[in-house]
């Protein structure tokens, strides 16, 4: 059954997928740092969505929907418009290429991302292993 993007159920499912993925565990075994995925409103969807993930050494310790960006102080913030996020989750756009072309903005410890690029890629892959339905 498809899960609504941006819902708590969706955040929980991503967390569950990451925790059951041996590939993610291996790629992110040294990863330390929590993260916001911030979906900015655009022409296709007018709401802002912030999903928080607590990622630590290959585990997703928790995930939740955040209303106020100041609620937490994550190590990373990945921001992008709704349409780009949707294309990434549909596997129509490569997440790293989206970051490198500025369509996704990344804020945080770049040195860690450069040392563990596969952790970031497998994190995104964890969002694409189940069917997502979008609110637009």
């Amino acid at each position: 059954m498809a899960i609504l993007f941006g819902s708590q159920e969706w955040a929980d499912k991503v967390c569950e997928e990451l925790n059951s993925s041996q590939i993610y565990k291996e790629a992110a075994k040294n990863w330390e740092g929590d993260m916001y995925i911030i979906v900015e409103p655009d022409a296709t969807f007018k709401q802002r969505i912030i999903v928080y993930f607590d990622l630590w050494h290959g585990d997703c310790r928790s995930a939740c929907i955040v209303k106020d960006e100041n609620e937490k102080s994550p190590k990373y913030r990945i921001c992008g418009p709704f349409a780009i996020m949707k294309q990434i989750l549909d596997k129509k756009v490569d997440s790293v290429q989206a970051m490198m072309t500025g369509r996704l903005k990344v804020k945080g410890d770049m040195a860690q991302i450069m040392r563990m690029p596969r952790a970031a890629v497998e994190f995104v892959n964890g969002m694409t292993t189940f069917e997502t339905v979008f609110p637009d």
Partner: protein
Amino acid sequence: MWYFVVPEVVFGQDALTRLAELQGKSAFIVTDKNIVSLGFVDKVKEQLSQAGIKSNVFDEVEPDPSLQTVKKGVALMNQYGPDLVVAVGGGSVMDAAKAMRVEYERPDLKAEEINPFISDLGLGAKCKLVCIPTTSGTGAEATFAIVLTDTDDQRKLSLINREIATDIAIVDPALAAAMPAGLTSSTGMDVLTHAVEAFSCTWKNDFTDGLCIRAIQLVFEYLPRAVKDGQDMEAREKMHNAATIAGIGFTNSLTAMAHATGHSLGAVFHVPHGRAVGLLLPYTIEFVGDIREDIWAEISYALKLNIPKGEKAGLVLARAIRGLANSIKEPLSLKELGIPVDKLDSSMDKLIDNAMADGSLIVSARVPSVAETEKFLRYAYEGKSIDF
């Protein structure tokens, strides 16, 4: 959306004379002592002087250049105030020059902070970068990547940003003619690996495919000749061109698993880069296997390889690459590199960790698990074709 980044490329006999047409007042030549002793720096200075450009030489770039060397070069650049940076050498020299240029133009940004997510570096306002390769392998004259070593932290830094690309690449075969046979063969295998991986990775694209195929053809045709007779200038020119063509190809689409595992092998056992990635290339073709069978068939077709009925193109291509490597006396297994098996065993965790963390792996058409990486390396050690 993606970019295709390419410098102005001046190639062929007498390409070096392009320097005499440059506009500028002061050039900072980045090189190493070997290149100076070969007389190449004098040739460069002579051409620059014809354009009325004075030169200062920094010849302290070491193999696997360090951040510390970059900082030393930048201090001299700040003293001289050049409007041209001219790198004359192999990949290490060109990487160091690229990093120096960034720090010189952007003193607020340390070289180690360069990453693919920074935009608007604003390079080019203060100086232009000219790269003149003296080996036919790395393609660094065409790439927007830098590999530096932080000697304080004992770690390698892979720094990428498309804005750090060279302004002009001068690809003059006369400067490659001094390469000894062993260097010619290992760097040539690097060219082949760049082209095959860029053509088969998940970021392959319409702008790079043709370049990669042409580079593969050039390597198969001319590398054995360049190794056999270093003064065969047709072969030298074709291989020099192939290196830059493959460089443009892979910088715009990336390399994959042979580079991820080859970087690891190089870091742990100090195997020359081209030799490491070239040795591992046929194993990675076998590992990726059916997922890219159409790609292996395309390459095989371009090379006019005969694919017997019922046989996989990937296996035919892997065999052809081993045949090429064997003909130029490149090793076919890790054992042939002289690595003792107990050293392989004791280094296995580090080899796997390095490979799994390597950025090249993100675009591999098939990404190995930790267990598969170990099995892969053990097969490559024994010279066994990958069958899993």
